[in-house]
């Protein structure tokens, strides 16, 4: 799966995107966050304020309980501040 990061999530993780093979038991957006946090301190830092992180699956907003099955791209970012 392709993971993409924006704003300070991107800065903390240290990259804009990456392709990761996720284990079969990683089923929801929440599971992906757990998986990433366990990977290292940069990820743990990025997701420290976990409730404020937003996710989009194939470029549509989703809640963190959403299943990721069949999706190609998962994005994580802070609350939006456009306009």
């Amino acid at each position, binding site marked *: 799966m392709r993971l993409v990061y924006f*704003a*300070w999530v991107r800065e903390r993780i240290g990259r804009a995107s990456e392709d990761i093979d996720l284990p079969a038991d990683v089923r929801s957006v929440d599971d992906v966050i757990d998986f990433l946090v366990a990977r290292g301190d940069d990820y743990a830092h990025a997701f420290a304020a976990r409730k404020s992180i937003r996710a989009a699956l194939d*470029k549509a907003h989703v809640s963190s309980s959403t299943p990721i099955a069949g999706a190609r791209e998962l994005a994580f970012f802070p609350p*939006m*501040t*456009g*306009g």
Partner: protein
Amino acid sequence: MSDACPVTVSVETGDFDVAADTARLCGGRHDIGAVASFIGLCRDEAGQLDALELEHYPGMAEDELKRIAGEAAARWPLLGVVIRHRYGVIAPGAQIVAVICASSHRAAALAATDFIMDFLKSRAPFWKKEHGRRGGDKGWVDARDADEAALARWHQG
């Protein structure tokens, strides 16, 4: 109603021209009685800001703006919607975002413009970073609770 409502959306680094967009929306038709518009500008009240930098999620930003415009056109009898949002480095005083809504009557045009700005602020994937005067990075702008609360206005009725 949305069949009759042409929607134009753009996410670009370059500036936009609201007067030209308005003329294009209204050109050659006499059924538009009301055009409401909103322009968001890069503000620097304290003289501390060198520039804003706007990051966006390519593809999703355009999709969200189109989706929000479509929701507005489903709620009000609109005859045209334009949403333009810039990204990249934007200097104080420069334009960031524009929303233009045309309708037969004023109430629809004004309400739809308000609605689109509220949803754009909290749902369109853009993030602002401030660059300070002395080259200092002032960091990412925090989302305002008031922006999220503004959405609640549109959930009743």
